[in-house]
């Protein structure tokens, strides 16, 4: 059966349809074309025609013309809308018109950069003689040292990532004179990724880049590409500090798309327990795979990916034991393996892939027919991005949203109209965050001495920041200039991303004579998946962890064949270390956030029944950071039942976590909100908001300054939400009669108290 027949059969299947809460049909959209811009250079036309392209989509033409006219452009590009041409055409045109021209392409990961250069070179080859003269190179951690000077001297198009720009290119700009003097175009792809702390860092890297361009006398223009988010132009404007021409009227065609909301059946009526989403996602994807339909399954954790891959592989194993038509894909696989799987998806030799959100980013894997989401991805934007992996230009495609029993999933699946009408999230960032700004001013001072009255990115606060760094002995003022005065390069101390980046190696010791590194994993995930005796699944092969060497950051694993997998419990706790400021019941201080894994469960495959427990002995992962908190007194809870109060507080915490980023201008993942029924330090029920970056980047400082405002906004949001008994927009998973009213009352009391205090 093809997909359409499959969907017909499903519609006739009563048991299936009983679980479907909504079936949305998004009609097909025809392509809209425009001729090549009249000024498009002949070699580019030739190459396009060789590719079988005789016209552009309307949005491509709009973007290319705007950029060729010297404008800064932001293009909103859903998957498969042909975004690459939007920036390669103006770039190549610039190089053809003036061979000394240079361009810088920025991608968030090395993998995407490598993809891009391969694609560029293929296009250059089609341009013939003129194309041969144009050189495109990647420049990142993988570039051989011997090749680097050639890239610096001869690369017309340098393709790199923000981290390399920050720590490799900008501090060594005197070696890149040719690039900086002739820089015409900066391309920032996947610009929607740069939000929150990462985005704030990125914006400052771009400020430093433009500062150096001014020094060398160039004035490049930008082309930014974004997935569908609520505020693409605003985001790009903040990162590039320029007004943007927005191109968002997509002219690419799209076949009909079906979105099916699926809620697994109730298996225990008394307790209201539903069947597991993994098993149902498995059943659904199995049917698709067996019908030869090209399918992608998104799971929420690495473990789920492996468990589902194991199941699906069984279906396609042939007489020779080959099962590579189904593959898993996630962080922790080595780059080569990932490339191989991506290639397989493009050329059709891989028919189904089970992935974490690692495949959500724009890696080219072609277009698949069906997408199964095992659990709601958490935000509207990533749901659409994942669903976008299925969708072909001509034929129909389908996305199944399989809800788990988590409250948020249940809300979405029972209120599909909420999801379908909701606009995607805003991406927020604050380039002027004092801590982040300070870091980049140091880097900028290293790169080029500041003039005494120079304003970094036009910021009035620059002289104060420079004076501060002078007092600290980092800068030295003489003859109207601040000079860098330390031995080390400041950029090496500044990481753009907030994740823990020390990775562990995973080593297969099944063959004692031939140890083999099969993957790596970040420090944060290791305790959960690589503790001793864990069953570690890698590409659906089972291994048992023999030894975890914490000092050397290595996990040694051996191949096994068992009928269970393991799942560890992570415990996160927050402890106050020191108070920096306080005001009544509100305080700002240093906290220790520790996460520890102490036990793991053995789960049987297929039935998912618990076969027993084991203990884990791994040091706690500790992180010092800053937090703002509010201790609550008795009167806040007066006359409210304990359980109801607790439920309301869960809702308030959730609401604070969604509302605070709007005012702190960060991403929700940059902060952590937790509620302690009785905190050890304050001795009272306490609500915490902490920075998620080790050491903190001042988000909680800011939250402390505006705590009352934040609480007031939380109350307002809850009050104005049209739902009756709480929904994911206001209270998250805290539903129930009265909960909205209670939450508002309690916040009112908190505010009264803090005014009184």
């Amino acid at each position, binding site marked *: 059966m093809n997909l359409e027949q499959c969907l017909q059969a499903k519609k006739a299947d009563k048991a299936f349809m009983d679980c479907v809460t909504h079936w949305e049909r998004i009609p097909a959209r025809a392509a809209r074309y425009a001729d090549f811009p009249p000024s498009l250079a002949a070699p580019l036309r030739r190459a396009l025609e060789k590719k079988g392209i005789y016209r552009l989509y309307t949005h491509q033409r709009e973007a290319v013309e705007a950029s060729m006219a010297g404008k800064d452009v932001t293009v909103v590009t859903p998957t498969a809308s042909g975004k690459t041409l939007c920036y390669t055409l103006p770039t190549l045109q610039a190089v053809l018109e003036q061979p000394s021209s240079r361009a810088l392409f920025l991608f968030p990961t090395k993998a995407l950069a490598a993809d891009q250069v391969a694609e560029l070179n293929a296009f250059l080859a089609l341009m013939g003689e003129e194309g041969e003269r144009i050189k495109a190179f990647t420049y990142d951690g993988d570039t051989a040292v011997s090749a680097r000077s050639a890239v610096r001297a001869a690369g017309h198009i340098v393709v790199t990532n923000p981290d390399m720009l920050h720590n490799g290119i900008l501090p060594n700009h*005197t070696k890149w004179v040719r690039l900086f003097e002739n820089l015409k175009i900066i391309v920032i792809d996947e610009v929607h990724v740069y939000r929150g702390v990462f985005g704030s860092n990125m914006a400052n890297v771009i400020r430093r880049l433009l500062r150096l361009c001014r020094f060398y006398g160039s004035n490049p223009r930008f082309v930014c590409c974004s997935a569908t988010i609520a505020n693409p132009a605003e985001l790009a404007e903040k990162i590039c500090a320029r007004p943007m021409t927005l191109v968002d009227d997509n002219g690419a065609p799209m076949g009909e798309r079906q979105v099916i909301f699926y809620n697994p059946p109730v298996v225990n009526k008394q307790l209201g327990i539903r069947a597991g989403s993994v098993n149902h996602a498995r059943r659904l994807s199995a049917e698709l795979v067996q019908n030869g339909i090209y399918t992608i399954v998104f799971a929420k954790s690495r473990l789920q990916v492996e468990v589902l891959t194991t199941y699906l592989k069984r279906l396609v194993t042939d007489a020779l034991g080959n099962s590579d038509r189904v593959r898993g894909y996630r962080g922790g696989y080595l780059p080569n393996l990932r490339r191989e799987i991506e290639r397989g998806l493009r050329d059709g030799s891989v028919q189904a892939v089970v992935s974490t959100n690692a495949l959500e980013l724009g890696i080219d894997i072609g277009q698949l027919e069906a997408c199964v989401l095992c659990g709601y991805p958490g935000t509207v934007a990533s749901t659409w991005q994942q669903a976008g992996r299925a969708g072909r230009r001509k034929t129909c495609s389908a996305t199944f949203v399989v809800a788990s029993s988590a409250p948020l999933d249940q809300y979405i699946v029972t209120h599909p109209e909420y999801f379908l009408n909701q606009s995607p999230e805003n991406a927020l960032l604050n380039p002027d965050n004092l801590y982040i700004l300070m870091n980049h001013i140091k880097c900028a001072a290293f790169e080029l001495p500041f003039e005494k009255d120079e304003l970094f990115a036009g910021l009035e606060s620059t002289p104060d920041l420079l004076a501060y760094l002078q007092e600290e002995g980092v800068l030295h003022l003489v003859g109207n*200039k601040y000079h860098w005065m330390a031995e*080390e390069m400041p950029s090496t101390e500044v990481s753009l991303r907030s994740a823990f980046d020390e990775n562990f190696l995973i080593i297969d010791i099944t063959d004692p004579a031939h140890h083999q590194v099969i993957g790596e994993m970040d420090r944060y995930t290791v305790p959960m998946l690589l503790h001793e005796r864990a069953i570690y699944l890698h590409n659906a092969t089972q291994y048992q962890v023999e030894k975890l060497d914490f000092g050397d950051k290595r996990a040694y694993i051996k191949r096994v064949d068992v009928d269970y997998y393991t799942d560890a419990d992570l415990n996160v706790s927050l402890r106050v270390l020191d108070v920096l400021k306080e005001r009544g019941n509100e305080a700002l201080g240093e906290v220790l956030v520790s996460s520890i894994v102490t036990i793991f469960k053995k789960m049987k495959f297929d039935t998912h029944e618990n076969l027993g427990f084991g203990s884990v002995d791994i040091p706690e992962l500790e992180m010092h950071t800053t937090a703002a908190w509010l201790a609550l007194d008795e009167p806040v809870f007066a006359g409210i039942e304990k359980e109801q109060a607790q439920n309301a507080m869960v809702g308030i915490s959730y609401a604070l976590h969604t509302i605070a980023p709007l005012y702190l201008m960060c991403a929700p993942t940059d902060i952590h909100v937790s509620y302690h029924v009785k905190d050890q330090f304050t001795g009272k029920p306490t609500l915490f908001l902490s920075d998620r970056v080790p050491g903190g980047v001042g988000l909680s400082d800011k939250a402390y300054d505006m705590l009352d405002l934040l609480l007031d906004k939380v109350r307002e949001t809850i009050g104005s939400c049209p739902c009756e008994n709480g929904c994911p927009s206001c209270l998250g998973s805290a539903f129930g009669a009265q909960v909205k009213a209670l939450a508002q009352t309690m916040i009112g009391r908190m505010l009264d108290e803090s005014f009184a205090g």
Partner: protein
Amino acid sequence: MSLLRDRLKELAKKREEASKDPPKEAQPPQRPSCAQRTERFALPPLRLQGEGLALLGEEEAARAYAGPESLAFLDVETTGLSHGAGTVAFEIGVGRIRGSCMEVRQLWMRDYDQEEDMLRRLAELLQGAAVLVSFNGKSFDLPMLEGRMVMNRLPPACLHLPLIDLLHPARRMYKLRLRTCTLTNLEERVLGFTRQDDVPGAQIPGLWWQFLKDGNEEPLQKVFEHNARDVYSMALLLQALHDGHLSPLELESVEDVYSVGRVLERAGRVELAESCYLRLDGGPLRGLSGQALSRLYRRQGRLEDRIALLQGMAQAGSGGVFPHVELAKIYEHKHKKLDLALAHTERAMFLCADEAQMQALRQRRARLKRKKTALGLRKEREGSREDGRMEGELNGAQGRGAANHQER
């Protein structure tokens, strides 16, 4: 850190108060000039030939060379080892030969604003020079100065002279003997003197920053002496390297003779290279030099010389498996003496300790055996005469080999 905002507020207040004071008389802008000092060293006259300079791997410099006075020895002291744009050279030493002495002129900046002047005056110090000489300048001093020129918007043309970077020829010539080729180590073990009271390189940036704070020049004198010393040593090292490459047979150390032999061989000076290797015969490096010599003969097609050499090595037990493997190849492919080839292969297997090489030897042995069978009875019959000769050749080697084995 978390109270940064408060500290900034205080600073802003201070600034505001300061701005209330009547503004000081604006001083006319003036280009600050850097400081300069000079040191002179007595120097035995340099005797250099283009041929010797070319052997140091610097053909372009050898062509440009126009007598000792055309050389400029260059060394900088910096505020750090990182290459980034925020690292600065605060002192530049340039040594020029003036008659029987070396004059080291040093420019240094008392503050960052004197950098531009320092760089401009560098061009003056390099006037009339045709060749630059440095130690590790190719990857450190020159890119550093070039970057500083860019930062100060000065043309870096004065730096674009042919360069002799002594680090690389020094490594080629001395690494086998010294292992580490720092300038200090070369001074001690090649030039034969030890520095007294030298300032460690790691302390140098700190000393300059201390001077920025307290203005006391005294501690910096040590830095200048260190730098002048470096520049002076370069001239002595250049002479030593030059002589060593031109007359390697006069060198004392066998390691150095061998190393120069390799350089000469690669430079096409085969005869001199051969003499180097031959001089090592019978000494502690005969295994190494024998291998080199065998390669050299092979390239020249001197098969008989090569066989004689290898047989000598095999009998003396020098060079380990090497002579046996080579002889096995020759007997198998050139002379088609399969039994001899097999015997040497087995001998090599007896001596072999390396797994990958052992693998290759096993394959060779298997192939030889197959070939022998394929050649059939006729060859086997003829072989009885060959056997007698082979015994003689192998006996010595076997005896030595066994002795070697016991020593281990």
